[in-house]
């Protein structure tokens, strides 16, 4: 009995120790990231390459998912609001939900799954193949060369993708309103303007900015500390996706809490 308890305690201790070490490493990486963000060389070309990778290449999936997210929201909200003969409000309700929550969170999920996973896998492969060591041996900081451009691009691209998600989501909702609930365009727009404020969009964009930073730093961190060949690359990628998604949801709650009080 005593042995089982001790063994359990030991496992718990090991787990806590591992988490503390991980947190320490993550903090050090963030420190180095900010150090290289404000120091030469500024790798403009690499940043633009990442803009293309994170932004442009995510555009098709963001377009498709935003149209359908807006449409399905419109469908559900329209049906419920129809009970109270308030279908005209469906655009406003969908717009509010998209602007404050769905656009930044869904974009965070999409970019994590597409770009974040790729970042983690690429950096992890470079780690296990000693390419990061080679870079360091040449006097080039991998943080400056690989991580800074990815974090800057993700952080700046996420609000843009989120704005596109919001706009196209509303288009999806509008089509459903028009086709299935016969909502008048002027009513749809008027209600939207009445309920969705500029501050809502700003709040959503702020979230998207934070999520972009979170998903890219977690992906790069997991890749950077990958160990053990192909298996290690796979583990790092899975961990990066899971940790990013969970962190986005948790951070979303706290940002919402702060924004509501503010």
């Amino acid at each position, binding site marked *: 009995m005593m042995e089982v308890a001790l063994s359990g305690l030991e496992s718990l201790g090991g787990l806590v120790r591992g988490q503390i070490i991980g947190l320490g490493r993550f903090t050090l990486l963030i420190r180095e990231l900010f150090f290289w963000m404000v120091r030469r060389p500024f790798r403009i070309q690499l940043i633009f390459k990442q803009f293309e990778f994170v932004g442009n290449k995510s555009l098709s999936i963001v377009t498709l998912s935003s149209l359908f997210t807006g449409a399905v929201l419109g469908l559900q909200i329209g049906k419920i609001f129809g009970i109270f003969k308030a279908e005209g409000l469906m655009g406003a309700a969908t717009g509010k939900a998209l602007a404050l929550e769905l656009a930044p969170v869904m974009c965070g999920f999409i970019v994590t799954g597409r770009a974040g996973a790729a970042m983690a896998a690429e950096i992890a492969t470079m780690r296990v*193949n000693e390419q990061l060591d080679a870079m360091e*041996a040449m006097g080039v900081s991998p943080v400056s060369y690989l991580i800074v451009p990815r974090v800057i691009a993700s952080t700046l691209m996420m609000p843009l993708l989120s704005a596109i998600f919001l706009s196209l989501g509303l288009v999806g909702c509008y089509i459903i309103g028009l086709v299935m609930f016969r909502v008048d365009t002027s009513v749809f727009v008027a209600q939207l303007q009445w309920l969705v404020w500029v501050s809502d969009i700003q709040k959503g964009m702020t979230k998207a900015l934070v999520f972009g930073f979170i998903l890219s730093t977690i992906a790069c961190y997991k890749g950077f500390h990958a160990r053990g060949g192909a298996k290690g690359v796979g583990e790092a990628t899975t961990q990066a996706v899971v940790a990013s998604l969970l962190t986005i949801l948790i951070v979303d709650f706290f940002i919402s809490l702060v924004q509501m009080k503010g």
Partner: protein
Amino acid sequence: MAIPPGQSQSKTHTIPVVCFKNVRKTFGNQQVLRGLSFELQPGEISFIIGRSGEGKSVTIKHIIGVLHPDVGEIFINGELLTRAPETSWIRARKNMGLLFQDGALFDSMTVGENVAFPIREFEQLTPKELSLRVESLLDLVGLPGYGLARVPDLSIGERKRVGLARALSLNPSLLLYDEPTTGMDPLISELIDSLILEMQKKIPGLSSVVISHDIQSVLRLADRIFFLHEGKMYATGTPTEFRANTDPIIQQFITGSLKGPLGQPIA
């Protein structure tokens, strides 16, 4: 009787290109370096040998400053770099080139881009100058016209040579080879050995440090051999001194015998 470290170097008065003083390094519970001390002289081919897990690669990573010692001092070209800021290490690394075991080439880049990578980072050259420099480096390692080749299409021997061209791109005074012939067939091993000798002849003042298990290469190429055992420098000397050495540990290592104080390798 083993030759104590540094004994056969006592006649030289030049500044050592690398100097370790009582370096200790522990990973978790495993103490890898246990007070390692040695000096590498400029212009020589120095081989660091020892059994697997004795800390040879850890030693090379300390030389390039990717790892830092827990205790002890490391001097590169006479400059104490143990607790120096990263900027000092970056400056020191510009004078070093490292050839990794499998080349460690960036597979997202072409051969030319790989070779050009350090030059782009540290020198301001026009595209034409850069292209000429890359081509001359590829010529030097016997791969002319490979600039546009893709890394995944290269054979292992070609990868090593591209890695060598990249290691030489900033005209280093210290060239490090991490197990360059491990896993190679005898022909490629011979090719790598001849490249090591060729570089030493072609580049005046170059110091080379090679980590190797290939005892034939060691005895043929080395100006000086450093034998690592139990995290310490067990013996140093020339190949002739090593051959003549009667120490049972050294003899067992040289002959590759399974019987002796080193015991049998764990399968």
